[in-house]
Structures are given as C-alpha cells and as structure tokens.
C-alpha cells in the first residue's frame, strides 16, 4: 500500500477552483439564509398566529428532512413544475432555505431572551417598532447566539459538499474528478478533508471577527 499524493499537487488549480466555489456558495448562502432566518425568527416570536404556524411548518419540514433530499427536490423535482435552474442556483437555493430554518430557531431564542426593560427603555425614547428591533433588540440578540450561529455556518459549509451530487463544481466535485481520473481515491479525499478543516477554521475566525466588528460591537 503506497500513498501517492503527487497527483494532487499537479491538480491544484482544480482544487483551488473548487475551494473558491465552496467559499462563494457558503458566504452567499450565509448572508441570505441569515436574513431569511432572522425574519422567520421574528415572525415566530411576535407574529400573528397564522404566520407563526406557517413559518413553524417550514422550519419543522426542513429540520426533519435530510439536506440531500431537499437538494434533489429543488433541482430534480421543481423543474417538473416548470421551474428549471442551474446546479449552482439550486445549490444556493437549497442552502438558503436550509439555513433559514435553522437560523430561525437560533435567532428566535436570542430575540426572546431580550429583557423587557430594554424594549421599554427604547419605546420610552420614542423609537418606532422597526428601530427598536434593529437598533436595540437585534444586536445584543445576535451577540447572545453568535457561537451557535457560527457553528451553523460551519455546518452549512460542510453540508455544501453534498451539492457535488447535483454536479455543482465545488470542492468535493473537484475531489471526485481527481479521484476518478487518478484512481488515488484515499489520498485525494484525505487532502480534501484537510482543506475542509482549514476552511472551517478560517470561517470561524472570519465570523468571530465580523461579528464584534460590524454587527454587535465588542
């Protein structure tokens, strides 16, 4: 049993392209998935009963079904209704919908932990409801749940590997290509696994810098 990693050095452009797409996919989905999730969390916390119920249904459906099935449903199933899309579009859509459901619960717990006094003080200063939410409730709420939220982003990034199954040309897809042409399966997947580990560490660092810097201060 000899291990030969040389093929991976030769194929590094392919790996790089794959990595870049994984990063793009993750960050793009992170932004829109989080926005969706915060909106849903707010609805579930303070919305009218019918809205809470609808969002609740969405959240439970997503959290209790595998991501790969959601992906297949969007990419293979929706065209049946006339909604055709590229693999990348389907991947983004699936990630956003998936992340939105998880962030909804994370955001909701953060929002609901807001002390009443904070809201009363903000109201007493004549802030309107939108201002109270965005300026007084949301930043500390995000700070409260930031570790959980960051963890969920890492999960999304690792989950994006599944998108290779609908031929989205991210990192795992690149790995599959290299492995199948070089027959060096083990070496390829070991290296790519290490790359994902690095990406996960980098993502955590990035998000733990972005949070205090731009979103909730200190």
């Amino acid at each position, binding site marked *: 049993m000899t291990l030969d990693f040389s093929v991976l050095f030769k194929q590094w452009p392919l790996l790089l392209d794959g990595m870049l797409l994984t990063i793009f996919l993750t960050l793009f989905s992170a932004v829109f998935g989080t926005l969706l999730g915060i909106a849903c969390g707010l609805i579930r916390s303070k919305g009218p009963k019918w809205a809470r119920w609808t969002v609740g249904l969405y959240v439970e459906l997503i959290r209790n079904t595998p991501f790969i099935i959601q992906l297949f449903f969007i990419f293979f199933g929706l065209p049946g209704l006339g909604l055709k899309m590229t693999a990348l579009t389907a991947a983004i859509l699936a990630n956003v919908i998936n992340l939105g459901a998880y962030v909804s619960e994370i955001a909701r717990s953060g929002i609901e932990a807001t002390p009443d*006094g*904070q809201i*009363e*003080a903000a109201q*007493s*200063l*004549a*802030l309107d409801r939108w201002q109270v939410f965005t*300026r007084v409730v949301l930043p500390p709420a995000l700070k409260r749940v930031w570790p959980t939220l960051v963890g969920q982003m890492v999960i999304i990034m690792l989950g994006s590997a599944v998108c290779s199954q609908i031929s989205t040309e991210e990192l795992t897809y690149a790995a599959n290509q290299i492995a199948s042409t070089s027959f060096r399966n083990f070496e390829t997947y070991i290296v790519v696994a290490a790359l994902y580990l690095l990406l996960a560490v980098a993502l955590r660092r990035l998000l733990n810098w972005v949070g205090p810097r731009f979103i909730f201060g*200190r």
Partner: protein
Amino acid sequence: MNPSLTQQLSPGFALIDIRGLRKRFGDNEVLKGVDLQIARKEVVCIIGKSGSGKSTLLRCLNGLEAYQDGSVMVDGQLVRPDDRNALRELRQNVGMIFQNFNLFPHLSAGQNVMLAPRLVQKTSSAEAERHARKLLTRVGLGERFDAFPDQLSGGQQQRVAIARSLAMNPQVLLCDEITSALDPELVGEVLQVVEGLAKEGMTLTMVTHEMAFARRVSDRVIFMHQGLVHESGDPETLFSNPQTPELRRFLSMES
C-alpha cells in the same frame, strides 16, 4: 369619562391631568380611580407600599401600561395607549428613567445618549454627539463618553440613563424608583443630579422610597394606598403631620 368634558378645563394649567384612572391586571384592579393634576415645573414625589399602584400609575403616563377607564392627559393631549404614532409623539415629551437603568449594553454611554435624537428627531450625528457630550458633562460623566455600561458603576449607569432621557428635551421626567437598585453609597450622586434638574425647573414625577430627598426637594408628595391617592400635600405637612392612620403606619415603617 368624557374626554371633551376634561378639555373644557384649561388644558395648559395642568401639564399632567389624570381623572378617574382605573387599571386592572386580569382580575386584580391596581388603580381604582386615581385623580391627580401636576403643574408645569412641579416636582411631585409618589410614595406608598409596594402594590399600592405607584409604578403602574407612572407607567400609564407614558403609555407603557394601558388603562381601562378614566383619562390621562399630557399637555392637553389624551394618552392613547393603542395608538402607536400618538405614543411616539407623547414619548418625545415625556421621558422615563427606570429602576434597572436599562442602558443598551452594546452601545457606549455616548452612543446611548445619541441614539434617540438621531433616529427620532433626525438630528445629525455631529450635532447629536455635541449634545450628548454636553449632557454627560452635566451629569458629571463627561470623560466617560466612550465607556460601555458594563464598565460603569450603578450610579454612573443611572446618570447616563438620565442624560439619555434629557437628550430628547422632554417636558416631564418620570422616575420609577431610580435609586432602589443602587448600593447605598451610590444613591447620593444620582439624587444630586435629580435635585439639579428640579432646581432648573424640570417637571418631575418620581416614585421613590427616599423620604429625606422627597421632603427636601418636592413641591408636593402623594401617598398612594390600595390604588388610590390617599393623602396629598406639601412635604413638610405630610411628613410631620400625617392625617390618616395608613400614612402614619407607612411612615413609621420607612423610618
């Protein structure tokens, strides 16, 4: 209570005009028909046992509590707790300071003071900052503009809270037991600021347990008991010569 009837009395005289105010929490009636008028620049202290309805009364004045019957008028306008826009108008005139300070933890002291003027009155950032620095200096915290709430003592936080309310240029300040959550040695610095405000002519309505302060600073003291104004009068008379047994009992417990 017929609102138009109350408007026949000269609305400018009583800045705050409460008539027949009734408030229930579920089955529990906390305010049982309160009548109270507070004039401009008047400093009124409200005292009483816990459960007598003092905080609830205060919170009805800026719409944090809705009421079932009676009327509350501030500067001639009826307080309508279900009208969000009317409440926002009201709260630019009526400021509130809370027992637990409720400073925004993610903003510095200066940012706390600047927030509402910028968002509500659309003041420019530069102007809001200038105003905030002035107010913080006025409460004795000029050099703490960039400090965050968790870096400040209780007394300092409460003074920032006062500056924050003042930034909106209110006509009335409502103080809900603002020293009750403070360590004893920090109470003085806050009361000093409040006394300064009173001397400058701010209309103050304070729920407080600080009897010495009330005696010295207020124009009128209201004793509440079981949801009604039980006794009312100037502090000297009220404290040295309580008319009702309930007040006598209360004062003996407080001393």
